[in-house]
């Protein structure tokens, strides 16, 4: 379904190549500069760096779908039926990241309780700080998160 003539089409392809290349380079530059690899001691705030990188990736995705995959030339019904379901992902991202954050706090609570290590039965008790979860050898805090509530219930009973 060529809605552009051949020469125009070739131009669009070349433009797309340059555009995607430049955006990718910009992303990498933001990452390297933002994390202080290029200019020593210079860091971008995480929020700015992440929004820039996510924004540029979304732009690349838009360009690939609408130009390379010719979505621009499809009828609106097709565009909507393909793109609108992906909006559900916005909710999925919010819900799951919220959940992940909850797990993070659970892990902290679990590591606070030395008695847990009896139920784990693998690590000795030199972990004094809460966040790193420094056990010897086996990584208790890296069990599947689904186990955690069960474990903390077990701890409750021990108390």
């Amino acid at each position: 379904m060529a809605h552009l003539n051949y020469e125009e089409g070739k131009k669009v392809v070349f433009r797309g190549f340059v555009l995607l290349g430049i955006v990718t380079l910009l992303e990498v530059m933001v990452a390297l500069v933002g994390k202080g690899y290029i200019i020593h001691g210079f860091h971008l705030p995480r929020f700015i760096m992440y929004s820039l990188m996510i924004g540029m990736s979304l732009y690349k995705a838009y360009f690939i779908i609408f130009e390379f995959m010719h979505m621009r030339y499809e009828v609106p019904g097709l565009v909507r039926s393909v793109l609108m379901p992906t909006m559900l992902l916005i909710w999925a991202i919010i819900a799951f990241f919220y959940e992940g954050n909850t797990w993070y706090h659970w892990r902290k609570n679990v590591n606070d309780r030395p008695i847990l290590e009896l139920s784990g039965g693998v690590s000795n008790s030199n972990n004094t700080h809460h966040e790193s979860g420094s056990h010897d050898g086996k990584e208790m805090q890296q069990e599947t998160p689904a186990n955690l509530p069960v474990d903390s219930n077990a701890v409750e009973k021990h108390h």
Partner: protein
Amino acid sequence: MASDQTLQAHQGHENESVWMGAKEPFKASYGKLMMWYFLLSDAFTFAGFLIAYGTLRFSSPTWPVPDFVFSSLPGGIHHKPLIFVTFMTFVLIVSSVTMVRAVQEGHRYNKKGVVFWMLMTIFGGLCFLGCQAWEWTTLIGGEKMSILKNPFGTHVESGVYLEGDGHDIKPGDSFHAHQTYLIHQHNGEWMPLKYKTEAGEIKQQQFGPKAFGALFFFITGFHGFHVLSGVVFLLIIMINVASGVYVQRRNHYEMVEKIGLYWHFVDLVWVFVFLVFYLL
């Protein structure tokens, strides 16, 4: 694509023709429409994987810094963050561009052009797979990362090393919080280093979150599998083009368009894998 003439011709038998396949919903052929919906469902699969990565990363107190983990280059060069994956990204972008050219030549019924640009696309796909194979080899064989063990740990506090690892770390080197390290193996034995925190405690390096290795290998592996199957399909369709199969067909080179959609989707997914694994 239904032209205006065919639409008018069927106006009289509207009800019958709807069910006889005379009308194309969304003015796209069945094959192309289904390719779009397949890609939509595949997008959800990848989104599920990447959201799982984000969730586990959020839930973990520490996470390996990608600039440290993915910083090797072929030829024994280390500590050059992002260079190799940027190259891989370029390879995939170029192969996407050559695919667009193949589709365009298909619209002109230029068989030679289609075959040439598809061949370039296949070459790009193989090049990408080669890069990924090298990356995996380095991680599995060199750095001993597996889906069960993640030797990339991350400090949560600043301190000073008491031992050296014979690679980059010497005794007395200081480090700061959020810095990622690699625990090396000597003769099959893990050699975590001892260090002294600023508070004066003596501690040992710990393994990183186990999920990191599993997520990395599963997600990039799943993407690599898409690239591999894409290369196989491209190869089959290229041979069909070369042997003139599509010249006979009513929809001509539409097969090239369909595999093109798939190939661009693989590039699209890489945009997000690149973002999530390497940039953030």
